């Protein structure tokens, strides 16, 4: 496809990689799970010199949802009047006692996969006797779609539709990682698609307050290698700036229509719990008061329990860049994509799933 194939040119990738080197060990975090997958799918890790280490960040929306919220979702889905709709990869995420939405469906709950939240709303309009709930999961990339769906639900007065909102914000998660005393990251490959919505300005604090460079990058192999090259150049020259390698779709100011929809439909929560990172202040969206009627947390009682991750699973360490997936004791044995223990093995954007799929089974 045009504007995709060109960025997969193997000779160009090798040419960039040949130029990469650094005079000490550097750790660069690719924030986005989409980048993690591209790196292993195309074997970019093998092209980098030994001193340049890539660590994987928290930018996998499915991965960061804590088990307690999965149990809340299951409790809503098990109500007889509810049709529970979700993106496919949330269905296999285990909650407490390793139960998932998929198992809830096997026991009789009406759980359905949708491609878009608008499909869930259309299903609600076509089935007025069902209470249709959409599982809102995702960063600012996905949240605008849900915001617009809420606006349409209100406009069309669809009373049998609601959203169980678990949307999260990327910038507070980066701050939490930078504030963590155990994490030493020299620079960030900034997330691409979330930046089409929020722009590049929300990362300015990383450069200004923490002195770390950020290069927002596209998802093709040469995009990521270019971003790494630009990060190394900044580090070599002692600069810490926000650069945009993905200018073909990311604008500095983001997408004003999408940001306006977010501002109308959502309010930032005081704090939200992340798997592995714990509660992070002002890091998640709830549904705005003006849309309270479409908030599943108002409509249905949820247990709201906080559940610790299974001890054997190191998802939390993986999400903070402290451990590589293949350093986890259950990786590829007790935890596989078919029978996952932790979220990082479930999601198509999870680092463990990437290591498993692309053969990085040994540390």
């Amino acid at each position, binding site marked *: 496809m045009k504007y995709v194939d060109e960025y997969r040119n193997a000779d160009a990738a090798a*040419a960039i990689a040949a130029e990469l080197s650094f005079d000490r060990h550097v750790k660069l975090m690719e924030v986005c799970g989409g980048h993690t997958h591209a790196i292993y799918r195309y074997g970019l890790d093998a092209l980098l010199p030994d001193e340049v280490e890539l660590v994987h960040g928290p930018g996998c929306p499915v991965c960061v949802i804590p088990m307690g919220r999965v149990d809340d979702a299951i409790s809503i889905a098990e109500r007889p009047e509810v049709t529970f709709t979700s993106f496919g990869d949330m269905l296999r995420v285990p909650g407490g006692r390793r139960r998932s939405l998929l198992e809830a469906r096997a026991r009789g709950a009406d759980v359905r996969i949708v491609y878009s939240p608008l499909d869930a709303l259309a299903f609600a309009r076509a089935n007025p006797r069902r209470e249709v709930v959409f599982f809102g999961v995702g960063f600012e990339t996905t949240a605008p779609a849900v915001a617009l769906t809420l606006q349409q639900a209100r406009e069309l007065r669809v009373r049998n539709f609601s959203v169980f909102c678990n949307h999260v914000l990327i910038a507070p998660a980066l701050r939490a990682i930078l504030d963590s005393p155990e994490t030493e990251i020299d620079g960030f490959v900034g997330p691409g*698609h979330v930046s089409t919505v929020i722009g590049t300005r929300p990362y300015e604090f990383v450069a200004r307050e923490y002195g770390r460079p950020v290069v927002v990058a596209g998802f093709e192999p040469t995009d990521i290698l*270019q971003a790494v090259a630009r990060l190394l150049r900044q580090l070599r020259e002692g600069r810490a700036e926000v650069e945009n390698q993905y*200018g073909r779709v990311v604008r500095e100011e983001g997408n004003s229509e999408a940001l306006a929809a977010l501002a109308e439909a959502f309010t930032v929560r005081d704090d939200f719990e992340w798997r592995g990172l714990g509660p992070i202040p002002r890091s998640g969206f709830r549904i705005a008061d003006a849309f309270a009627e479409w908030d599943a947390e108002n409509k249905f009682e949820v247990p709201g329990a906080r559940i610790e991750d299974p001890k054997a699973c190191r998802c939390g360490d993986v999400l903070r860049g402290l451990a590589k997936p293949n350093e986890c004791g259950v990786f590829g044995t007790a935890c596989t994509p078919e029978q996952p223990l932790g979220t990082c093995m479930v999601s198509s954007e999870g680092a463990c799933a990437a290591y498993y799929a692309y053969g990085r089974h040994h540390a």
Partner: protein
Amino acid sequence: MLERLPDGLAKVDFGGVRRSVSVAFTPDARPGDWVLVHVGFALATLDEDEARATLDLLGEALDAELSA
């Protein structure tokens, strides 16, 4: 993007698969534009000048490698 449809929708060709997507967030997108689509919504229109500029940098990297 192939064509604009009513109700803020547009028909988009995903390398062979055609689907209608919302263009509520890309009101200026026109047939013939390349759009970035996520969960049924076009989030951005591809800027062809910027795309070429990135490719030019790739070309420079290649040239440098070949002449080295």
